[in-house]
């Protein structure tokens, strides 16, 4: 029997000013999934998350968490969700330990259980030494980790993270990725929104892209990346080049004295490109993607209609 961690049906939100943020979206996230919800600013991601977490009132539609309707089974559904919001939303004058333990109390955990879980998650997120420090004395990365510890203290089965790594350095970001992957392997379903598409591509198995209040893509990461018909690579050469090689079947462009761009269509092999460069007497030092593959797709999917030239659908 399959279980949906999250089921959204016909979700619509019209704000007081008349702006329609969501136009009746349907979405399903399977239990155990690591799911990316992406979209440009103002697309409706935060409104969707806000409705799931009861911070935004929906206009129409239903939201179910592990089969429990958030309206009808209010308390039970909420106990299954942990949320890490985009902006810091704790009192900076409170102690780190108090912030997490208080959240445990909000979810009805006993004092003992709350204290145990607070210790467990502050330790796992490397904040146990800071438990008696006021939150205002934490660095940006520590504040992000504090929000994750707080969201986990009642041990939710569905964790929703709204841009959890915004503004943190790469080292902390990677340690947070490792932590989230570990949580997911242990059975926690994770929904992630992020502007770092590399993050979504490396962590998430399934993805939905929302734009102008509608889901414009909802598929597996593998299937989505498979839609790319062309990838652009940057080829670094050993020697400067004067003339761009003309090789049948390949398009090269000179971008710097030592670098070429290469458009590789689906079905073409890099081996053939290397052979062509070799025959032109050019030695390749390194090769990299010009941009993140998901980024290419994201831009295409959320651009105005008719510009999605790099995609094939169906």
């Amino acid at each position, binding site marked *: *029997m*399959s*279980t*949906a961690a999250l*089921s959204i*049906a016909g979700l619509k939100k019209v*704000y007081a000013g008349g702006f329609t943020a969501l136009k009746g979206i349907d979405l*399903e996230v*399977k*239990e155990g999934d690591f799911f990316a919800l992406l979209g440009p600013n103002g697309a409706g991601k935060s*409104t969707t998350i*806000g409705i799931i*977490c*009861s*911070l*935004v*009132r929906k206009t129409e539609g239903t939201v179910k*968490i*592990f*089969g*429990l309707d958030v309206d009808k*089974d*209010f*308390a*039970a*559904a*909420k*106990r*299954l*969700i942990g*949320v890490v*919001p985009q*902006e810091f*939303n*704790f*009192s*900076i*004058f*409170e102690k780190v330990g*108090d912030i997490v333990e*208080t*959240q445990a*109390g*909000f*979810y*009805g*955990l*006993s004092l003992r259980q709350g204290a145990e879980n607070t210790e467990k998650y502050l330790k796992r997120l490397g904040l146990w030494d800071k438990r008696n420090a006021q939150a205002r004395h934490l660095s940006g990365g520590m504040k992000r980790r504090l929000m994750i510890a*707080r969201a986990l203290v009642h041990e939710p*089965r569905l964790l929703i993270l709204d841009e959890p790594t915004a503004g943190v350095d790469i080292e902390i970001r990677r340690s947070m990725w490792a932590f989230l992957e570990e949580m997911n392997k242990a059975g926690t379903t994770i929904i992630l929104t992020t502007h770092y598409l590399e993050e979504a591509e490396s962590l998430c198995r399934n993805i939905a892209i929302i734009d102008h209040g509608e889901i414009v893509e909802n598929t597996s990461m593998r299937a989505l990346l498979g839609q790319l018909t062309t990838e652009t690579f940057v080829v670094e050469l050993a020697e400067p080049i004067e003339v761009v090689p003309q090789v049948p079947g390949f398009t090269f462009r000179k971008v710097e004295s030592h670098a070429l761009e290469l458009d590789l269509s689906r079905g073409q092999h890099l081996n053939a490109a290397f052979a062509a460069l070799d025959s032109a007497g050019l030695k390749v030092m390194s090769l990299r993607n010009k941009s993140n593959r998901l980024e290419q797709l994201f831009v295409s999917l959320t651009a105005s209609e008719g510009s999605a030239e790099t995609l094939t659908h169906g």
Partner: protein
Amino acid sequence: MAETSPAAVSVTAQSTYAADWVAFRTIVMKEIRRFLRIWPQTLVPPAISMVLYFLIFGTFIGSRVGQMGGLDYMAFIVPGLIMMSVITNAYSNVASSFYSTKFQRSIETMLVAPIPNGVILAGFVAGGVARGLCVGAIVTIMAGFFVDFTIHSFTLTVGMILMTAILFSLGGFINAVFADKFDDISIIPAFVLTPLTYLGGVFYSLDLLPDFWRTISYFNPIVYMVSSFRYGIFGVSGDVPVYLSVAAIAVFVALFWTISLVLLNRGTGIRA
């Protein structure tokens, strides 16, 4: 569409009463921690200003006033000053705490949790009552240095102070719900609460007023609270009947509770 998991069903079967109680206790403890953390702002100023009232109005001026409402003037002003501290502190605790919670968006941590709105409201109100009673106790101890008194009716005295603290905590909550900036939570205390308190029979008996102003004063709810509280402490008949005061405050508490809960359920000022 996927089906409900058995695990989800077991969660719904859990009783929520125990969890609600824990959530209530957590909010109250959080509120108490907040006003104790900033004790130089919350507990010390009322103690100092009340000592000044006792000294200036009670000792220096009061000695020349003589009797008021059947009591020495110093004794006469004690219940009103205690009540005044409870009113202002209960009100401002909830107003500033709930507004800060909105402003810092930490209210979201309660809204995402499975806490019924009534429990959230009760938690904030209990926090306001706790600060009101705490400051009231400090002022009562201070008063003990200036005048000897025993409590005539413990039930009435405690009942009045509790109901008053609850009422003004609810008032502070409603103020904070509508407040868009910090100034908005000081307007009502400055322009409504302070005048009503000073004109609420704290420093004088309504018998001293001309008929017109005495009639006007009967529309001031604080007159009823102060008068009945004074009766509870000294057993001296006040400006208004006690039963009327208790009934009126109870009605206002019910009304303010209902308004506050409706505002929370609608998400006024806190939910988009």
